[in-house]
Every structure is written in structure tokens, then in C-alpha cells.
């Protein structure tokens, strides 16, 4: 087994902004947001990052999201590709309606059927699920367990999750403002993304490092010192600095503070430019890590970071901006953080 980079052969996304990576990145660069009251349940006045195209139909909203993602895939999926599917709650609307109770298993079955890949692996690591799935796939490819890996991340909005985050007091009163001094919580969103990876074929991008660890301190709150998150970043970066950072950036006070502290530890001379797509799309839970990789790669190719949506007054120490920033190169560090103190860092490069 080697730590050689793993190629990215294909990327696909399905969000309210559209079904191409290009139009999604254009939306981010234009500072668009997709927040509105959902029509599929009573969110009690809250705004969510909702994709209205998923409304209606008899089956699970997750089924429609995965079908939308499948239709967005323009690259061939080679025979023998192994499926790594990430989610936090899966087809949770089925449980809400009194149907299937094992919603993550149902998610895996849906993904296997819709993408035609049996024998998939479900990876769940709270809100770090997406990047954790990519990291697991990278390691299996390096070990030679498979020649190609399709990494999927998907989560939907619904009453189960919205009520849960509301009960925790984690939701913004308005919409999320990642890395803003006045941030007051997250805004939930929905979406899906896919990556086709290979350890042996050249691609248009690559994952050069991945690392995960845990704070082992608190079940919901991150370690505000950023100690373990910075350690994960250091391991993933392997001594080479990034040109920019796609942060987890939920817009909660504690999450963003922990990330800023981790980056300050890592870059005492000043952190690189930072951006969170949750200001545009909301927190898409298990999808966010895969979305960050897919969209991050296109941003790295264009050598830009979008303006930070929702930003008014940058939090002290956060290198964020309301302007589009040019990057010096195409190497990005992407962060995921999850309940339980889970940390994930992924390094991707555009070629």
C-alpha cells in the first residue's frame, strides 16, 4: 500500500442550483443562495436550503435526489466499480411516514439500485460522513481492493432533522452566516454529489491526502482549541500548504470557532483564504464532504474562491471575504466536522 495520490475521474452534483458542477460553481461565485420555506413539511417559518424539484412523488425524497444525481452523471462508471455511500439520516422521510425504519440501510439499497452497483458500503460519520467515505475509498483503492470507486454523499431535508437541530438550539433564526462575527446557527440544506476515483488512471484532479480523528471530548461540541482538527489537517497536507480552504463552516458559534482555531494553529503566519458553501446551499449533512470535493475541484481548476455568502463582519482570525478571491494555485484543503468530535481533512488538487 502506498500513499500515492488517487485520481478523480469524474464529479457530479445535484443541488437546487442545478445538475452540473459548472452551474453550481457559477452560482457560488455569483453569491446565490437557495433558502426558502419548504413545501414538503411545516418548518414553522424556518428557511432551508431546499431543492423544490424533489417535491412530490410517492417514494422517498431520497430516491428522487439519487435519481437526479444519477441523471447528472456524465462519466462512464466502469464495471466492477465499488460503491461508497455516505449519509447521516438516509431516507428519513420513510420513517416519518411510518414506513421503513432502517433509513440508512434503505439509503444504501436505493443507491445500489439506482447506480446499478451491488455490494456497496455505507459510511456514516455524522456530518463528516462525506469526506470520511472519500477517505475510506482512497485507502481501498491504494490497497488494491478495487480499481474504481464511486463515492456518493446525499441527505434530504425533512421534519425529523429540522426538529432535532431546532431542539438542540443549533438553527439560525434567519439564515446561516459562516465565519461571521454575528453568526447564530446553521441552516439545513439538501443535495447530493458523486466522485469517481481511481488509483491507476489519470484524471482531471486528485486527492493527495486524507486524515480523520476524534476530539474525544464532548458528544456535540467541538474542541474549541482546534487541536485534533489541526492535527488531521497537518497529516493530510503532508507538509505542503494549500492555496485555499473549503471549510465545514456551518455558521454555528462553536463549529466555526473551532475551525478558525485549528487553522490558526496550522498557519501561525496567517491562514489561507477560507470559504464555506453552506452560506449558499445550507448544511447538507452527509453530502457536504462530497459536494465540497466536487465543487472544490472546479473552484481549484478556476483558481478562485467565491465570496462568502451571508458574511457581514468576518470573525477575528478567519480569512474570509465578500469578494471573489484569486488563488495562487489549485491545491485546496477541505474540512468536515461532525457530532461526537469527529474531524476530517482532505486535500485535493486540480490538474
Amino acid at each position, binding site marked *: *500500500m502506498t500513499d500515492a495520490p488517487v485520481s478523480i475521474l469524474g464529479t457530479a452534483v445535484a443541488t437546487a442550483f442545478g445538475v452540473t458542477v459548472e452551474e453550481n460553481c457559477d452560482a457560488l461565485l455569483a453569491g446565490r443562495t437557495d433558502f426558502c420555506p419548504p413545501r414538503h413539511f411545516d418548518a*414553522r417559518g424556518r428557511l432551508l436550503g431546499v431543492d423544490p424539484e424533489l417535491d412530490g412523488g410517492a417514494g422517498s425524497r431520497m430516491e428522487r435526489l439519487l435519481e437526479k444525481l444519477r441523471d447528472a452523471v456524465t462519466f462512464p462508471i466502469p464495471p466492477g466499480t465499488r460503491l461508497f455511500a455516505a449519509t*447521516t*439520516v438516509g431516507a*428519513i422521510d420513510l*420513517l*416519518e411516514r411510518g414506513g421503513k*425504519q*432502517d*433509513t*440508512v*440501510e434503505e439509503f*444504501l439499497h436505493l443507491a445500489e439500485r439506482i447506480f446499478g452497483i451491488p*455490494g456497496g*458500503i*455505507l*459510511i*456514516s*460519520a*455524522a456530518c463528516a460522513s462525506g469526506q*470520511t467515505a472519500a477517505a*475510506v475509498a482512497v*485507502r*481501498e483503492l*491504494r*490497497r488494491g*481492493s478495487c480499481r474504481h470507486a464511486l463515492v456518493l454523499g446525499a441527505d434530504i431535508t425533512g421534519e*425529523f432533522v429540522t*426538529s*432535532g*437541530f*431546532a*431542539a*438542540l*438550539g443549533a438553527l439560525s433564526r434567519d439564515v446561516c452566516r459562516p465565519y461571521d462575527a454575528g453568526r447564530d446557527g446553521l441552516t439545513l440544506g439538501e443535495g447530493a454529489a458523486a466522485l469517481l476515483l481511481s488509483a491507476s488512471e489519470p484524471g482531471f484532479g486528485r486527492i493527495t491526502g486524507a486524515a*480523520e*480523528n*476524534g*476530539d*474525544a*471530548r*464532548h*458528544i*456535540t461540541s467541538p474542541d474549541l482549541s482546534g487541536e*485534533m482538527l489541526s492535527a488531521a489537517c497537518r497529516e493530510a497536507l503532508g507538509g505542503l500548504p494549500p492555496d485555499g480552504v473549503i471549510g465545514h463552516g456551518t455558521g454555528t458559534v462553536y463549529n466555526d470557532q473551532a475551525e478558525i482555531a485549528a487553522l490558526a494553529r496550522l498557519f501561525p503566519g496567517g491562514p489561507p483564504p477560507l470559504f464555506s458553501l453552506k452560506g449558499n446551499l445550507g448544511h447538507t449533512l452527509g453530502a457536504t464532504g462530497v459536494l465540497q470535493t466536487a465543487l472544490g475541484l472546479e473552484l481549484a481548476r478556476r483558481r478562485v474562491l467565491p465570496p462568502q455568502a451571508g458574511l457581514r463582519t468576518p470573525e477575528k482570525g478567519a480569512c474570509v471575504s465578500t469578494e471573489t478571491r484569486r488563488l495562487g494555485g489549485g491545491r485546496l484543503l477541505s474540512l468536515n466536522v*461532525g*457530532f*461526537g*468530535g*469527529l474531524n476530517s481533512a482532505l486535500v485535493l488538487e486540480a490538474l
Partner: protein
Amino acid sequence: MKITGGALMTRERAFRTLVRRGSFGPFADLNAARRHLTALPGMVSGDLNDFGRGGETVRRVLLTALLAAWDSGGALLESTGVFGWNGDGCVSEDLIYWRDYVSCGCEAGRGGLFVATLPTIPCCEAAITLRCRGRVAYFRTEPAAARLEELLLAAPGGTYLCGETTSSSVCMLLADTRLDGSPFPEASALKEVFTALEERP
């Protein structure tokens, strides 16, 4: 890969360990089990201050994890990862939260119940208790222990506490992927791996 410790908790709240061949219980309840197990000579120190915070699944996992660590001979390395695999996942916690929410309403629903709906929460609670700061993840694969073994061997070399939780049992094995050992016996569940290893001399 070598299995360096393990513990199994049964439906009757009885516990067995793999290396030390310990047998404890059955216990009337989890608090009685906790009192007995944490008093064992050489029991690893673990932060159980929040033992009551988690639901029953978390408490069962915490006790089994502590016992697996004890079985391996002492405190776990800080870099130890914790993996959950197959079993029942978080189905019962999902139902507990949702029924509570439906009956109590959005603002009155209990957020603590929501946190437990993530399948990694028992693993995270075990990591906090045992101060393990390695990787934490939950995997659902086809029911073949070889698949879990493959995931472990693909992960960076180190020690991993692997758990499988069902309504009737909790099984936790401590694996060191840097050491040579026998492959997992053919099995569809971690509990079956445990019992097969138990029968080896």
C-alpha cells in the same frame, strides 16, 4: 491483523471476554453491571461521568468497550480508532426520538434523543470514555466479517475497537492491524467471530 482483546454482552446482561476468558453476570441492570465491572482489578480508567446521558444502547456499548480494553491488558493507545459495523445501527434511537417528537412537539422534544439518532454516537461515547482520538466511523456492508477485516486492513495501521450492536448483544473486538494474526473466521456477524475465536485454544 491480531485480535488483542474482546468482550461480548448478551441479552441477559452477562459478559464474556476473549483473552482473559472472563465471565461476569448476568446482572439485574446496567448500573449493577457497571458497579461490578469497574471494580475489576486492573480495569482501565474511563470517564463514566456521563454514563446516564446516553440511552441504553450507549450504556451497553460503554460497558462492553471498557471490558474489551480490560481484556486487552490495559489502557488503549490514544490513537485507537473506533468503528461500528452492521448490527441494528440506530433504528431504535430513531424511533425513540421520532415518537417523542410527535407526542411532545418541536420545541418540547428532547435534543439529547436526537443526538442519539446518529449511528456513530455509541462509538463516539466509547471514544470519549476511553480517550481514544483515532478515526471513528460506522460501516454498513454485506454481512461478511471478511468485509470488515478488509476495511480495517485498508485503514492506516494501528489499533481499532470494532463494535456490533443488536437488540440482543453487543460485541467489541480490539484489533491491531500492525501485528500478524489469523484472518477473521468466516462469519456473518462480529458476535460469531467472537464465539469462533473463543473456541480456539
